[in-house]
């Protein structure tokens, strides 16, 4: 297990996103109102870059004429064919059992804890007074 420091917590505002590259793999980190989550920046359907997608909600219905609008801000649509993915689980809404994009845990960690290592942070300078986003791979 390797820990990668990818950003300071201030860098991604609520509703924001950032693409980071870990071991040649692009991962998009999202701030869901204080919860940080990561998904692989590649749609499993045909490879569209999910970071360009629009974030929306789960719009479901129990019967014609009735609508549930749930979890706004937590569902992303692929910029190409419009597949829906749950940002928290990586699961697709279209075919949840079969189609899923890989998701990553993003931990908020204090710089004082990180300086003890081990971690990788090629482009980020870590100081003890800051809070960081750390992805485990």
């Amino acid at each position, binding site marked *: 297990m390797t820990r990668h420091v990818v950003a300071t917590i201030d860098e991604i505002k609520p509703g924001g996103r950032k*693409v980071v590259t870990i071991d040649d793999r692009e991962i998009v980190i999202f701030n869901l109102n204080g919860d940080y989550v990561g998904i692989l920046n590649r749609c499993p359907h*045909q490879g*569209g*870059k999910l970071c*360009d*997608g629009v974030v929306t909600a789960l719009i479901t219905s129990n019967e014609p004429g009735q609508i549930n609008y749930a979890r706004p801000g937590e569902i992303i649509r692929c*910029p*190409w064919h*419009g597949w829906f993915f749950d940002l928290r689980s990586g699961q697709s809404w279209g075919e949840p059992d079969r189609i899923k994009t890989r998701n990553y845990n993003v931990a908020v960690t204090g710089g004082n804890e990180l300086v003890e290592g081990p971690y990788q942070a090629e482009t980020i300078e870590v100081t003890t007074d800051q809070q960081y986003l750390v992805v485990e791979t």
Partner: protein
Amino acid sequence: MNIHVSEAEAKKRAARIGLAIADGDVHPALPKPQAIYPYLSQRWRDHMDTYGMIPRHQYQAGPAYPKGNPDASRRDSYPPEGGRPGSSLSFMRAQHLDPNNVELGILNPLAPTPGNAQNLELSAALATAMNQWQLAEWLEPEPRLKGSIMPPYEDAAASVEEINKWAGNPHFAQILLLSRTAEPLGQRRYWPIFEAAANHNLPIAIHAFGYGGNPVTSGGWPSFYIEEMCGHAQCCQALLASMVLEGVFEHFPTLKIILVEAGFAWLPALTWRLDKHWAKFKGEIPHLKRPPSEVIREHVWLTTQPMEEPDIRRHLKDTWDWIGDDRLIFATDYPHWDYDDPIEALPIRLDDEPRRKLFRENARTVYGF
């Protein structure tokens, strides 16, 4: 908006594809509607400013069915310099032609489609303008791209004039119609267009969409965009049946038709049904001497996007075999939202030869490049 087309990434992709490919459906766009004005006379510029182009379906604010994505496009396809997706040649090269190793891209401009204009004189002026625009801004600067002669197709006489103007110009690969015409396409009013195409040995591409003035499904106006998307199959079945049964191919035995962006899995079932009825109705259509399936097999090609994606993938392969692997032409539909990626889109494994046919040879045969 992030722009993800580094040169290194593009080279890596092109190497993965290996083969130089043909793309039967690329959509160039005007950066804004007024970008066509340099190719229109002042009379028509004034007309467009004052009245606009009244389409045959009568809704003036845009397509009758809003698309699945803004401007029907991939959200990553907006050119960095601004303008509509598909309006920048340099960005099309960087995002599509180079990384996907496209050696032959067929342009199918859609907006405006001259044939959609209710005013036939405007329709003819727009046709000439769109053809000039393609030549000046796309075809002369980029030899990998070949254009479509766009005729004002609801006016056959004007269409023949327009086709004669451009036929023989090596920058143009085909004549472009949209599928939803005012009347079923096999009817006599369209025959002069077929005659001109046959005389010049130019294939006729029929791209899904368009506004002929009829509802977008045979049952009327549906409620949802998804119904419009699925409706292309029925629309293309109707136009193909019309062309075959009216005797278009008996009369123009060298005519080549390419159906673009309507899917293809529906074709075998249509030919089975046509053949079944033809055997019993020879008295109604005595001019049709051969089973419809045979006529279609000889005269019709189809582009593959948007490809059907059945759960059991071999069903797609069966369909492929029934249609014939020499009849299917790969297409991406770049930059539209339902784009088929040349590396990822094909849900079945093809051997080298059918693969070469799909990605290059069939296009070279039908377009003559």
